[in-house]
């Protein structure tokens, strides 16, 4: 199998695993980590395509995704901490009143 095909396959599999994790798991922190896994899959596909076309734009985009992922976690974790302080649990079922 071609190297590009292999890497794109891995990227798609990582994204799907993260999506399944976000849907299936009930722990809020585990859901956050599965979102990170999805971002990692996207990063791998970007790097692969950038290598294939021999451009630097993919690397720039990956770097920006690093920054955005860090900011996302830095904001999501205080929110989770506040929710846990309010509800005393990490289980998703307790947060039903967030449904608007």
């Amino acid at each position, binding site marked *: 199998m071609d190297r590009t095909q*292999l890497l794109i396959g*891995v990227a798609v599999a990582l994204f799907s695993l993260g999506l399944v994790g976000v849907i299936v798991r009930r722990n809020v922190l585990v859901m956050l*980590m*599965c979102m990170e*896994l999805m971002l990692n899959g996207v990063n791998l596909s970007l790097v692969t395509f950038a290598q294939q076309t021999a451009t630097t734009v993919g690397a*720039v985009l990956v770097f920006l995704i690093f920054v955005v992922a860090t*900011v996302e976690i830095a904001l999501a974790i205080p929110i989770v901490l506040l929710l846990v302080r309010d509800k005393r649990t990490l289980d998703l079922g307790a947060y039903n009143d967030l449904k608007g």
Partner: protein
Amino acid sequence: MIDSLLRNADSVLLLVCAAATLASGALMIVLRQPMRVAMALITTMIFLGAIYGLLGVHFIAAFQVLIYVGAVMVFMVYVIMLLEVRESDGPRYSRLLVPGKGAFGIAAFSTAFLGEYWLLFELTSVLLVAAVVAALAVIRVSRDSGNRKRHG
């Protein structure tokens, strides 16, 4: 046998890293305790960094390990240790992995980043400032609501 393996060491290593990435990614969904999930995610990210290194984008590999494993996941592990205290009393272990690694092959990236894509660089700084302000605002909101609960 060994000869052909050595000649294709690049592809073999790539295959091994891809398989390990997928395996630890699948472990993330199966494992029950959040700390073990975090360890599986760290394993995934380190093997992804190895894949980036094998592809030749060394500075992205370095940033993958430094930013994701060094910053994001250490933060996550701390929060899991902070919140896990009253949920489960299983064994907890944390391993902070920050290998010292220089950044190389970065010249083309830097000139493109600061020359052609300078607007994105500036937007990054705006994003970071917004994140700091938002984090402070979240803390302020929690303090205010805590005061309101205590007084009223």
